[in-house]
């Protein structure tokens, strides 16, 4: 469990990092917290000749608000975002997801961008980004471009980023008033990669659900946006019968696989259970927010 010999680069600016990436492209890996990459290096499953550590680029670790958006720099530590009032206020689903990510020491090192660029479909943040239609900003030798979350996640551990592109920030639309979120997952142990998980964010409008966003982890090669369930629920109150129909719609549309830790049938069924809980929780919070505002 010693990594293959590699050269470590520690650029101080994004431009330097992009230049290094352009130079080494296919032979390089980007280190952005290391909570997944370092074990992969030690198992020799990743064998880059060059490791580009983004840890010294202060500009990538900023979290800011614009008129319409919450902009999270790729190197914002998960723990930093978890404690951010801005995240809680403007991206409640992102805030709800963090406590489910592994354990505090891992969130202290792990970054938002690192987890998203790693694109593990069992992870929490990709599901959140997909649910919220986050916009991914990539920078490379050809300049900057924006990638929708629908396009960003290509397959298991594969994104739309080119080998010479760097994920620099992720933009989330600021949540409307009366919006609530919940993240539900089940694992063998606390902190493990979830067997299956459900992210939900809803806005409550006159007691009815609007802007329903649901995304599942662990049931497909990429985060699974449950559009059928969203459509069923939008414009209605989340009563049990409707939620049951939405859960069945999910069960009918996903095709998870089984492994040592859980069968495919378990994941399929429990995805519906967790979606129901997540939507119920999100609705409750949205209602509470509305009550507080009133």
């Amino acid at each position: 469990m010693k990594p293959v010999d590699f050269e470590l680069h520690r650029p101080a600016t994004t431009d330097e990092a992009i230049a290094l990436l352009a130079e080494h492209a296919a032979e390089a890996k980007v280190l952005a917290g290391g909570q997944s990459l370092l074990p992969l290096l030690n198992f020799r499953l990743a064998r880059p000749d060059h490791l580009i550590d983004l840890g010294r680029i202060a500009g990538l670790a900023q979290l800011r608000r614009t008129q319409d958006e919450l902009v999270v720099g790729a190197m914002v530590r998960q723990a930093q975002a978890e404690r951010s009032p801005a995240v809680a206020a403007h991206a409640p689903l992102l805030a709800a997801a963090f406590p489910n990510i592994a354990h505090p020491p891992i969130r202290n090192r792990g970054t938002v961008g690192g987890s998203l660029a790693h694109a593990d479909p069992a992870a929490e943040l990709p599901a959140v980004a997909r649910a919220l239609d986050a916009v991914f900003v990539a920078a490379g030798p050809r300049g900057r471009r924006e990638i929708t979350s629908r396009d960003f996640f290509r397959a298991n551990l594969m994104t739309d980023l080119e080998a010479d592109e760097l994920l620099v920030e992720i933009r989330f639309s600021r949540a409307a008033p009366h919006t609530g979120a919940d993240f539900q997952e089940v694992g063998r142990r606390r902190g493990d990669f979830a067997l299956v998980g459900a992210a939900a964010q809803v806005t409550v409008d006159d007691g009815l659900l609007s802007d329903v966003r649901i995304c599942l982890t662990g049931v497909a090669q990429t985060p699974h946006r449950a559009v059928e369930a969203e459509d069923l629920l939008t414009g209605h109150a989340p009563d049990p019968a409707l939620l049951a129909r939405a859960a069945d719609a999910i069960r009918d549309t996903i095709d998870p696989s089984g492994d040592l830790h859980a069968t495919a049938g378990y994941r399929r069924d429990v995805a519906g259970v967790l979606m129901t809980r997540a939507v119920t929780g999100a609705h409750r919070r949205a209602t509470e927010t509305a009550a507080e505002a009133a």
Partner: protein
Amino acid sequence: MTEPTEQDAAPRPETPYRWVSKPGRIREDRRFVTGQGRYVADITPPGTLHVGLVTSPYAHARITGVDASEALALDGVVAVLTGAELAKDTDPLRQYLAVPEVQWRPLAAEETRYAGEWVAAVVAESRAVAEDGAERVFVDYETLPAVLDPEVAAQPGAPLVHPDHGTNVMAHREFRWGDVDGDLAQAAGTSRVRSRWNRNSTVPLETFGVVAAWDRGRDLLDVWASIQMPQFPEQLAHALRIPTNQVRVHFDVDVGGSYGVKRGIKHGVLAGYLSRMLDAPVKLIEDRAENMHGGDFHGPDRIFDVELAYTAEGIFTSIRIDVIDDEGAYPGRSPLQLAKPIGAIVGPYRIPSAAYNATAVVTNKTGQVAVRGFGQAPTNYAIEAAVDAVARDLGIDRVELRRRNFIQPEEFPYRIPSGTEYDSGDYPAVLDKAIALADLAALEARRDELRAEGRLAGIGVATCLEPGGGNAIFENIMNPANDKTTFPEACRLRVDGDGEITAIISISSAGQSHDTMVSTLVGEELGRDPETIAVIRADSLTGMPSQSPVGSRMTIVLGQAIRGAADELKAKVRAIAAHNLGATPEEVGYEGGDVVVRSDPARRLGWRDIVAIAHRKQHLMPPRTQPGLEVVHVAHTPRSGGLAQPDGTVQLYPCYSFEAHVVLAVIDPGTGAIDLDRYYIAHDCGTVINPDVVRGMVYGGTAHGIGVALYEQFAYSPEGQPLTQSFMDYLLPSAHEVPQIADTEHCTPSPFTSLGQKGAGEAGYMGAPAAVAGAVNDALTAQGAAPIHALPIKPSDVWSALRAAGNEERGGK
């Protein structure tokens, strides 16, 4: 995880002891918590070379060629050793069964028999370069049919792991004790449970490691190793074909966890051979993958069929246990783990007859080794699962059923049908203490409230015996040619010229706090403050006979040696003093180091004066007395010495500890996730030496047992690929998964040990699996679902059981 229970606040019972059973500093803890432990990885003699391993990707394959040229061309690679080369110069590792065709070697020579088996070793100037080299050794394989399922492996026509042996069945023994047929005929009914104890182990933070340094000028192989292994030095010498007095194993090395698994004989032989071959110190520290795949350290992997017969009143009349154990590819010592449970084959119950049919088979998996309790934990789980089944079948309360069948306190010593006499115990009292601690009525009310709220909840109750004072007579049961009947421990006590006391033992410790135990017992025996007593570990050439701390034996057997050494030392002190006091040794008494004439206490001689005479004043010594104050005492295991009868009856272990577990599990009906809400234990290991050490053993063992019940499994694909490649998949319970545990002690001293002590390291692991599974099954059966009898129980198993019973919860809480 734990906080003081009410028992802590209560005054401790008065003991006749000055230091024993009282809270005392655990002297090892300071060095461990301050990072001052000295482990084998910390030992790097100048010029040390490092080993990396080439491992088999196939579960079963013939090796047709090895090309190491690219590895040898790498800068920093010193040598590559293949299995065929090693086999030419060494003997195979020891088999305890009579299976001469089974050739277990550190590196596979002709065939690899499991994925992960070591095929070649690369020696380099650093571990990283050794791994680079290992990637550049190219091995040609011709794959062979593999067998993974132990029941399939036992059938004729199955692919053979060792074709020359002719069968995968390495041992099959059928035992019948008592009137099995008559007792079955009398029975009103029987309950049968088929249960599956899947492959788990103790998985220490520290993997196995060894440093071997051959000194050509002195003809001496120095070895530092992370071991807990009887006869390690001898087996190393035999395999290397060098005299046993040329191997010096250093025991003054901290072992970072073991509970049985740190055997490391193949690691030691490989490092020793390489050191002699290269004339340099050689270090082999397994990484986690090597450890998990090829460390040959997995634990029992068993399928049980248990039939428990009973009268209409729920009195047990007979038990039959059929077990098949998957040893992995090389049986080694592991099949003996089928024999140890013979010493507690009826558990704590009064069952007049028993049948036991035990089968050991090999499969294409990494080898099994001794794990905490040496086979007793799975057996206890199988027995307790059957007891719960009887309670369900008869509609009798589980606690009441156990009470009706317990061996009663006045019946000890109690001979069980298989020949062992249990030394002492008060099972009803201990169970009562657990129930009182748990406030069972309140716990049941809490369970019922949870159920009313729509959750699944269940209470588990289990008891277990912990046989303590391990001897090796199971070797004789499973292989009559092996007539070893003693398994001794020894202690050297030396009092130096200043009167300071040093106790010398010849074993390494793996977290059992032996320094604390030895200093406390020596202090108690000699009436000297334990804080002042040094504990030192001799190496294997300067030390005394020792078998290592297996089978919960050190407080018992080493305790016996300490008693013997202290008695001899005190006799000499008395003789010297009596000579100078003008009295006979019989007329004087020993009082905490001073010697007093009993009839005239004013006539006395102090410790320092006696020490001075012994070391420096020949003119004051009694005639024919050796100078100095130094004794060695080697003790047999209590009650050992007899050979097994042809029907397997024998006194197995001398001491039997007892533990009762009560646990409340809460299950999420939507996801099947299991949460242990409350955990209570009552424990009796006779006289406690250090209460905090015992408590640590109880908690740690219980955490381990919770792991077995819910999390831990070494799994394989049908093709024989290991599915548990790291701690992402082999799931150890963390502080999140282990609930707060409340515990209380009971004390039934053993009549066969120096101060009434018994063993304490294993009970948690023996009781928790049955208790936790029992709690889950209480929750499931309340929903009309079938109980689960395969460990670990996963959320998806619970979900499947609920679905099968038509319980489909959609969403909700």
